[in-house]
């Protein structure tokens, strides 16, 4: 029997009159790649934000590898091995690509960050460059954020989250804001890097071609609820999903 990576039970969240989550329950096994689809305001990002501790649910429980993480802070959840990337890449604009990666290396190592150990020691730079090479952005290592394309920023955001052997990765719209011709190459690089680490992956996505190509299973959100949870073909063929999410049925 496959172990459970993430279990969410009966999550509820309201923002004044808006219902962002209403009774969301889902069990995510280890090692899978699932996608989260839904129109704007359907509750996908709220789900990611609740699971990663950014916002607290009004009701419900979130378990990560059997431990209750509902009340934990984002930092505590991150330390347990759940990482995320952001719809708008959260990078340090004043630092170079390599320095951004070194920040992740400094934080996610076996010991606590040192007061004396140079951040740019050869070992750390080698490790950082290896990750950047895996995402094929090593050639931009000396560039600052303003000099990077949207796709490279997305890749760096994910690369920083991936360092330190996470168990679960949540990617919030990894291809949004990326040129159409860059989407598949970027997802290829991301999935290749994630598969090497055998990380359980959930990604929010609007492009159904990407959903079909990269995910084992799809969760379709509508109005704060999961209206379908099945294989990509089944979910994309579902009448409710076509009506409320993909817009292929009027």
């Amino acid at each position: 029997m496959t172990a459970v990576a993430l279990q969410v039970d009966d999550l509820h969240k309201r923002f004044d009159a808006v219902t962002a989550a209403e009774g969301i329950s889902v069990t995510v096994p280890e090692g899978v790649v699932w996608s989260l689809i839904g129109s704007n305001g359907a509750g996908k990002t709220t789900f990611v934000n609740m699971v990663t501790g950014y916002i607290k649910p009004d009701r419900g429980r979130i378990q990560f590898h059997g431990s209750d993480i509902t009340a934990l802070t984002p930092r505590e959840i991150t330390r347990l091995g759940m990482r995320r990337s952001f719809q708008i890449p959260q990078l340090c604009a004043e630092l170079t690509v390599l320095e951004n990666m070194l920040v992740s290396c400094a934080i996610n190592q076996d010991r606590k960050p040192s007061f004396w150990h140079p951040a740019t020691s050869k070992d750390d730079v080698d490790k950082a460059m290896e990750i950047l090479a895996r995402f094929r952005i090593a050639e931009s290592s000396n560039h600052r954020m303003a000099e990077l394309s949207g796709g490279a920023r997305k890749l760096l955001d994910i690369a920083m989250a991936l360092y330190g052997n996470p168990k679960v990765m949540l990617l919030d719209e990894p291809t949004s804001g990326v040129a159409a011709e860059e989407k598949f190459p970027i997802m290829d690089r991301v999935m290749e890097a994630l598969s090497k680490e055998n990380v359980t992956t959930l990604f929010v996505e609007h492009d159904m071609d990407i959903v079909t190509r990269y995910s084992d299973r799809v969760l379709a959100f509508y109005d704060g609820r999961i209206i379908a949870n099945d294989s990509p073909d089944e979910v994309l063929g579902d009448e409710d999903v076509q009506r409320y999410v993909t817009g292929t049925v009027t």
Partner: protein
Amino acid sequence: MSFLKSLPSRSLILFCILVGLGFAMPTWGVFLVTIAFAKGLVALGNVAMMRGGLVSFGQGLYYCTGAYVAGFMAIHLGFSDIFLLCLAGVFVSTIVGAILGPILSTYRGIFFAMLSLAVSMILYGALSKATALGSTDGLTLPGPTFLGFAPEGRALSLHLYIFTVTLVVAAGTLMRMLFDSERGLITLAIKDNELRVEYLGASVRATMSVNFVIAAALGGLGGVIAGLAIGHVDPEYAYWTTSGEFVFVAILAGHFSVGAIFIASVILELVRSFSSLYFPNTWQLALGLFLLLVILLLPDGLGSLMKRWSRATAAFTKKRI
């Protein structure tokens, strides 16, 4: 040549040069640089926090605490050894920083600046009313002793100068190591994007609290030295204009170079001394114009100039090789 490139050896060379300069300078120059370096230590702490995006307008609190601890111990308890007074001043300032750090480090921007200023002004108000500590007149300190040795006149100034240079070089070297360390890089990342740092698993609050405590310790050390050099402490040490000077030095220096902080502090003391000599009623105007020029021409401070110069030197050396 590699010996000259290592940080400890560069610090040692700098120490020897600074000590040599002390013997060459007139007594007023020795005094001016001692005071500038003492204030530079406080500004160094300010820069440690500015690297993480926090600008403290209340470093006068620790500067004043260190100075008053030394004054109190010298006058009321009869201690005169400079090592002991420094240890006591740094200890008490660190304790105060450790209490306030975790509280104030949760605030950002103008709220942090104003709260740090407010706490400093509370001390100013309290000291102004404390008759046991000399009220607004403050305390007059006797000359310090150095492990039992009690120099006087120029010898005292020189001993105090060398003692200060030793502390400045040691603190500067350690802070350079800290700025270049993993913690130092995380602090820079905090200034840019706190959310990212938290989502990578580091505590922004803990990191900034540690920086706060380090800044408090440096503030206390600067206060003890300044108090002993001037021979007098009063509540003005905690006044907001004193804290403003440390911010002025930090902005003038920028956060790239530790050496630039002490150069900026010496420049400030020189500008202040000569301006008050030649334009006694408008010296603040000269100081303001000077800062304006630096901000316009060197927005990242004097340190950026030194960084550019060191990059150019490295490129030139590489080309020659």
